[in-house]
């Protein structure tokens, strides 16, 4: 069985974790076209190669990100979500305003 390094709990069997889907930034939910939004919701990059994805350590409910090669299943790196999401994200009511922050625009 694979081992996965949880940034909080260290090296553990991968069965202790829950896969949380591909990491990809959410498009601006007000500006995005209908097709863009549908692709955000239903479509996946599903790359063969190195991807960034969400994982959660079930026993501690700790979410983090991992870089994994989807061909070799080699896990290159795991890191706290705060490396990407390091500031509060806000949404603004007025449509023309873009709610984008650093966290979002990545």
């Amino acid at each position, binding site marked *: 069985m694979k081992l996965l390094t949880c940034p909080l709990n260290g090296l553990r069997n991968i069965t202790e974790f829950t896969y949380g889907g591909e990491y990809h930034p959410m498009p601006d939910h007000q500006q995005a076209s209908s097709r863009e939004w549908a692709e955000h919701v239903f479509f*996946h990059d599903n790359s063969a190669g190195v991807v960034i*994805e969400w994982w959660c350590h079930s026993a501690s409910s700790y979410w983090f990100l991992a870089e994994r090669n989807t061909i070799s299943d080699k896990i290159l790196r795991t890191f706290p979500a705060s490396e990407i999401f390091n500031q509060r994200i806000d949404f603004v009511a007025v449509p023309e305003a873009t709610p984008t922050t650093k966290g979002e625009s990545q």
Partner: protein
Amino acid sequence: MPFGLLKYGLNSEYPGTHHFNPATELKKHYDVVIIGAGGHGTGIAYHLAKYHGITNVAVLEKNYLGSGNTARNTAVIRSNYLTEEGVTFYRESVKLWQDLSNEFNYNVMMESRGQLTLAHSDAAIRSFRWRAEVNQHMGVRSELIDRQQIAEIIPNLNMSEDARFPIMAGLWHADGATARHDAVAWGYAKGACERGVELHQLTEVEDIEVTSGKVTAVKTNRGRIECGCVVQAVAGASSVVAKMAGIPLPIHSYPLQAMVTQPYKPVFTPHVSSPHLHVYTHQTSRGEFVIGGGSDPYPLYNTRATLDQRETLTAAALELFPFLAQARMLRQWAGTTDMTPDYSPIMGLSPVDNYYLDAGWGTWGFKATPICGKTMAELVATGKVPEIIKPFELERFYKYQQINEAGATAASH
């Protein structure tokens, strides 16, 4: 002793003839290029050649004939689907299955064993009734049965009330069947090649050329081919190939593992599955118990087997048949399943002209093989999408009009 075999005994020289055209050089141009020589790809080629007279066709296979999920699936054939669109489609497929051996004069060993799906909760009973009602209304043999009836169909199933998850009811699908999975691709390929189609094994597509929204050529490890149109039938690599043509797909590719035991004398006949325990099993004609279950917990393009999946699968199988503890597991393997959000396939037109999709086959591709061959060939030959596959168009996701084969419970993310 069937007469078919006499010639082999009576000839001193082996009378066998090459079933497939021996590998030749690639031509510069084909009217149709089919990517993937599994059951689907070869089926499409066969129908193009036999029923539409289109024979300037190349079937490209990066590995060997039928080496993908055709070789790896557990050969379950059924039509007890949930949606009108699904049932109509798979019902037609099962009809074709029943004629297949004689259709291309090659025994695919299609055998109706019946399929029993077990309910361990009242929620499951509700969703089985849903299935049964839709099926019956559409003339598919499928019914909700009680414990008594289950015990009659499979006397050695563990019906104990003290089981951790007691069996409460079942969904009996008399048309559930199995077949020799490899033979499907072999039979189609043989028939296609006899009619002039070219099968090119060990030929991998490396890029797809699209000019002004229209597919014009494919680049392979053996050179570039110009083409009138392209059909991709590459279960397990759909996203990767479609990406070469610039087409995004609503697919996540997960390994699906299965295992087989040594051969034993017959113990039970039907195919048995328990969605709650995530396990299914049946005994092959050779006497082996095939055991399969749910997909792996995370996506991967790799057909390695894992011990944890083996542990889960066998534990679940033994909940149903404790005596299987004495059976010996011989081999464990995996295929790659292209899972769609609504558990329905993606067939038909794509955003790229002359580029046709036969994808998103998750765990249900084998049973659809004949109908895919037929309908996709019709699409390629006529340019018109056959009614029966219209609902499975890629566009449905942009329209929020999914074909819900997922049933009752929604995914949380």
